[in-house]
């Protein structure tokens, strides 16, 4: 019995050792595929979230290095709204930015009553940044043509999404196509709009059009074109045409333009409120981030009781009993040996 009690206590210690390791809100996005691009002066990027517990004191943002001159990144935390009351500020110096894809922490004085409150943070810089936050688009990616090695210039680009054959693997394997993202070396949306037109390659019928926004310079990131769900996209051919501002540069690889197709309808998430760009909400995507509040034992117990339900209680009881029986078994084995 004593053995069982010792191991039960040990289990509690091991479990509660996690209290500093459990983020309040976290976007886990693997593998990371789409980075937002450089942050330009006067075009801050941000994200909204709802805290579960009190004591919010840090936000980590996943940043990818893009190259170029390093500049400090400013962090501003606001209450309720992307343009709401400023609560905290933090800064990461250029010299502290990571060499590779990694989390960057913005720490600030704890906010004692953060439980249930809405927050928006913003990242800004005095010059275009050398690092980019990662963006998770709220869809199911299928066709992923990764960031290629060449730049394609032009204001009118087109191509086709095709089934297999002629492709080795179909470009569109799912129904419900909802968005296309294109890898961009540089597109200045402030100089003019970018438009995507999807059409049937056989009939020429225009199926969907989409404009990318908001108007801001876009560099070394992915440009998303969202449109109303196109249901019958499984294993079909589609023609796409891009109209871009003058001087636009897109990224391409061996298979053509670097792009990702996203499927499935949008969903809302109570704890994450979507990304922001210059204070404008983008509900179809999120920055990859995690927020840290006070890692109390009570917070851990709350989460376990909410998510574990009765099965968890039964399981814990069975585990404890198994230790009691094991102790009894070992005791009997010892007694038998000494007989």
């Amino acid at each position, binding site marked *: 019995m004593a053995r069982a009690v010792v191991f039960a206590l040990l289990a509690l210690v091991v479990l509660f050792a996690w209290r500093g390791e459990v983020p309040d809100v976290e976007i886990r996005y693997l593998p990371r595929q789409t980075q937002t691009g450089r942050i330009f002066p006067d075009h801050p990027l941000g994200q909204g979230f709802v805290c579960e517990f009190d004591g919010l004191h840090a936000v980590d943002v996943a940043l990818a290095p893009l190259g170029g001159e390093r500049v400090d990144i400013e962090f501003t935390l606001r209450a309720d709204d992307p343009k709401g009351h400023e609560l905290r500020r933090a800064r990461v110096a250029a010299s502290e930015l990571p060499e590779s894809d990694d989390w960057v922490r913005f720490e600030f004085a704890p906010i004692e009553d953060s439980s249930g409150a809405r927050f928006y943070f913003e990242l800004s810089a005095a010059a275009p940044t050398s690092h980019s936050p990662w963006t998770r688009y709220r869809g199911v990616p299928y066709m992923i043509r990764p960031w290629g090695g060449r730049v394609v210039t032009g204001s009118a680009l087109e191509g086709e999404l095709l089934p297999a054959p002629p492709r080795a693997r179909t470009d569109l394997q799912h129904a419900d196509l909802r968005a296309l993202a294109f890898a961009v070396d540089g597109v200045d949306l402030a100089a003019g709009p970018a438009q995507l037109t999807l059409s049937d390659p056989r009939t020429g019928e225009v199926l969907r059009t989409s404009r990318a926004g908001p108007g801001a310079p876009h560099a070394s990131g992915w440009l998303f074109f969202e449109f109303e769900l196109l249901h019958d996209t499984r294993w079909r051919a589609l023609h796409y045409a891009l109209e871009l501002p003058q001087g636009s540069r897109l990224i391409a690889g061996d298979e053509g333009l670097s792009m990702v197709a996203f499927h499935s309808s949008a969903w809302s998430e109570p704890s994450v409120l979507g990304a922001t760009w210059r204070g404008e909400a983008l509900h179809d995507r999120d920055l990859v981030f995690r927020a840290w509040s006070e890692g109390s034992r009570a917070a851990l117990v709350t989460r376990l009781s909410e998510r574990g339900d009765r099965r968890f209680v039964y399981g814990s009881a069975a585990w404890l009993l198994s230790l009691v029986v094991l102790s009894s078994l070992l005791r009997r084995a010892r007694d038998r*040996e000494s007989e």
Partner: protein
Amino acid sequence: MHPPALTDRRLTRLVLVAALLHGLAYFFIVAPWMGEDEPWQFEYASHVADGHWPWGGRPYDPRAEVDERTLMSASQIQMRERVSGVDDGALERRQRAILASMAQHDYFRRVDWAGVCPDRSDFDQVEPFFTAAKQPPGYFAVLGLWMWPLSSASIDTQLTWARCSSFLLYLASVWIVLQLASVAFTDRSLALAAVLAFAWFPMNARQAGVINNDVLARTTAALVLMLCAKRLAGDDRLRTLIFAAVFAALSLLIKPTTTSVFVALGVTVFLSAKSIAGRLAIASSGLVLLAGAFYVWRTQQTTVLPRTVAAFFERIERGFSLETFTALGKGFLGGFNWLTRDLSTPTYLALAAFLALTMLSGFSALFHTRKGVSRPVLALCFSVVAFQLALVVLRGVGHGRYVMPALPALSLIVAVGFIGPFSEFRRPTALRVFATLLCLYDVVFLWGGLVPNEYLVWSS
């Protein structure tokens, strides 16, 4: 035959009760759909439970008026090719129902590569082109039959009921290893250590709560090994060997990872032959069987073995890579949330070091007398483990569960390695230390890995 080590019925009952409770803990704590490939395997078995045979399905027709691939997902087409008589609508409805249950039970928040989007219309939107339909039908026939009485119940009820079969198979495996240890050892401490190593090994106990053909593969492999060990320990009855051969043959209908049971069978027949001529005859028969296996390999489609010499060497290179063995070690010793989350590196290193040292110590028992250890059975265990690892190398994919059919053999080796070097007088103490170390491993695995990852850290 030497006297069995576990004659105390109360002791064996206690072992089984402890294992029952331990398995029950994992049965309850492992969250729904957290077994690797569980949705796909459940889907397959559920169609069998609905009364469809797990073979003889309708193949994809490339000449159809409307390309079927535009109408159905790849995983649905593959399932229809396998299961007979199931209509297209039922395939789609079943996948949608399973996906709805997965979303309801927060599968997408737990498995990091799956993305949190809860609205998926088919399995391909979780993993494109993936299916359980390519797996051998044995497990799905058995599980389908088990699920049949509840085939009209909700998906959640069916899942729980299907997992009950895994729990029972876990218990059955523990009982089989108990028998195996009893014939392998005359020392009680050694036998108990082997059973505890098997029952308390966390990734094995976790299989008490998940649906996977690896579960039945492990149980069948344990059964064959036990029958072979009985034969080597002096059971001369022909039926023992026949049963072993029958179960070995049946295991191929469950999962190719059980191929190592044929090595067990071969080694047993070879070692139990009474003359050199007999052994030569057996070796010749083995060569004929190998030639047959080669023929089957050349004529059948299987992903298990490479099909060309170039592919063979490519597999070997991949199989021997550090990445493969790292993935194998992590998946075998402890991986969570569909192996997307790990234990800490020092934990893996400590476990791997312990395993390596005990195996080394166990290996030395082949050449030095360890009281109470049957050397032929130990040799049998080593041959099974070695072949199982060779299979993983040949496959080139380091999934820990692929090693599970060799876990009964490994448990015996670890028990010999840890307890064997001690004198009979010291062995009960060594057993208590061994059990304490196992419990410590279990605590770290369950409360420092499985529970936090499945219940505390979710993606938003």
